[in-house]
């Protein structure tokens, strides 16, 4: 190899490197642009909601019921209480069923059996089904049909529970799978039974992921409008549900009803209700982060 050739090769290398660097920079710029655009849209949206909704955010908004006769005294008490009840109900329903299913599929199920594979594939698919379809399911099987309990709070909780159940199962399975086999082997080697291993070693090790997943799924349930509309939640009721068998509403329904209204005062109250919903969601996601940091295990 002559000196000239070496020089040419080196130059080629530099040029190649430069081109690569340029491409990398372009791509970087593109990514920042994409993030910026998304962020800008978010800021604009939240900003507009805040401008319209913040003036209405007062104690009265939490203590009063929606009012048609005197719109300026409207509040969202029934919707806020309804959302809290719905979340609790959904959690009560989804946590035991979801975790038990995940444990069965990860720890007990024989994956060579066709029915277990069928369950797995179905759960994956169910997680991708649009929420309104769950609403129709709830209407046909819970509100009418076999259960026939009517458009009541329990029906809302069960429908939302069904909606987030696949996601909870998937997240719980991931966390259980992340527990190293050595933990199980160690426990079994020390004479623990299968159940003792699962309940005292695997579950506690996986709880950070499970808890985070459950809370994030519940946040999704809170923001759902379509399934509740389909099963027939009430619009702007002036009472809180006093039992599982009572009519109910939730914040997204209240927001939807108010934005539809010809009276602009209600549209502003929809913005206020959106802020309350956002705060609840932020609070829940904050709790999820704290719990994850606290319980997270590193192997």
């Amino acid at each position, binding site marked *: 190899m002559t000196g000239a050739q070496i020089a040419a090769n080196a130059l080629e290398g530099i040029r190649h490197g430069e081109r690569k660097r340029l491409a990398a920079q372009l791509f970087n710029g593109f990514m920042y642009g994409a993030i910026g655009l998304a962020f800008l849209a978010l800021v604009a949206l939240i900003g507009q909601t805040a401008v319209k909704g913040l003036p209405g955010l007062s104690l009265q908004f939490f203590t009063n019921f929606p009012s048609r006769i005197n719109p300026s005294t409207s509040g969202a008490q029934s919707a806020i209480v309804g959302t809290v009840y719905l979340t609790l109900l959904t959690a009560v329903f989804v946590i035991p069923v979801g975790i038990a299913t995940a444990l069965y599929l990860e720890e007990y199920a024989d994956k060579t059996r066709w029915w277990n594979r069928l369950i797995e594939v179905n759960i994956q698919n169910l997680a991708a089904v649009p929420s309104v379809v769950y609403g129709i399911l709830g209407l046909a099987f819970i509100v009418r049909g076999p259960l026939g309990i009517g458009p009541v709070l329990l029906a809302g909780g069960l429908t939302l529970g069904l909606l987030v159940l696949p996601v909870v199962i998937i997240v719980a399975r991931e966390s259980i799978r992340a527990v190293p086999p050595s933990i199980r082997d160690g426990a079994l080697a020390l004479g623990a039974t299968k159940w003792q291993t699962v309940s005292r070693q695997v579950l506690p090790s996986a709880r950070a992921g499970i808890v985070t997943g459950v809370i994030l799924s519940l946040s999704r349930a809170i923001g759902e409008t379509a399934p509740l509309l389909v099963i*027939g939640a009430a*619009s702007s009721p002036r009472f809180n549900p006093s039992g599982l068998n009572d*009519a109910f509403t939730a914040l997204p329904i209240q927001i939807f009803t108010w934005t539809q209204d010809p009276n*602009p005062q209600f549209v502003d109250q929809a913005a206020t209700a959106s802020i309350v919903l956002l705060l609840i969601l932020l609070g829940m996601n904050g709790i999820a982060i704290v719990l994850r940091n606290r319980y997270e295990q590193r192997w």
Partner: protein
Amino acid sequence: MKKGLISIATALVLAAGVSACGGSSGSTSAESLSGSIRVDGSSTVFPFAQAAAESFNQDQANVKIAVGESGTGGGFAKFCAGETDISGASREIKPEEAAVCEKNGITYQSVQVANDGIAIAANPALGVDCLTTAQLKQIWNKGSSINSLSQIDPKLSTTKLSLFGPGTDSGTFDFFTEKINGEKGATREKYAASEDDNTLVTGVQGDKGGFGYFGYSYAAAAGDKITIVGVDNGKGCIKPSVATVQDGSYAPLSRPLFMYVSEKAISRPEVKAFLAKTTDGSVSIAGSAKLVPMTDAQLAAAKTQLATAEKNAK
């Protein structure tokens, strides 16, 4: 708390007043009722039902009234399945809906509660005073490319129109397209749509080619900032007013609004009291709901219908 006491006191005084003047069909404001009532149906009747529930709760706080807005058809589907007690309707029940009710053994009574009218509004600068239903159809029908009123009548203004109308979710939209364009939902595409009637009013008054349609009470409230255009349905030009909407002579853009109550439901004291209070207070409730109230004759007819329903109650 203090505020609460004051409003309770006001409600009591009002209730006393009502029962003193009315004293009619089963005013039961003395006894305390409980239970729950399910109301659903037309989105036009929805604000009325909501205001009615609110005013009823002022002296009967323990009755839970859940009001939904599934639309007239969706409301009847639930009503005839026995899922609701009262169904709001902006038209009479259709034979096929009535057949479902009959199959499920739901007998019912319709009671008029208010009137609804749609006003055609124009910016005063357009100088238009009256249009026929055929001309309105020319402007608003599917595929219309009318840009100025001079295209439908050479004598009218050549100013470029800016059209305003309600969005497709609105009961007003369904009603207008059905009556004027002949098919529910058929509309021209190019117009500024908003569910907010006040936006439409602002739009029409803010543009010198402003032209649109929306609920009569909003047009009336706008005063002389807009011109309310009369409609000629073959019987001369008639402008919407409380009187012409009430008697239906402002055709075809006025209609009565109903509540259908099942005879099974009205046997329950809370439903009976709710409907009695709602008809008694229908004038002020219609005001809160921005609808046109009933005439005295309509009110009397509504009370008779209620009495029939109570008599048939099982």
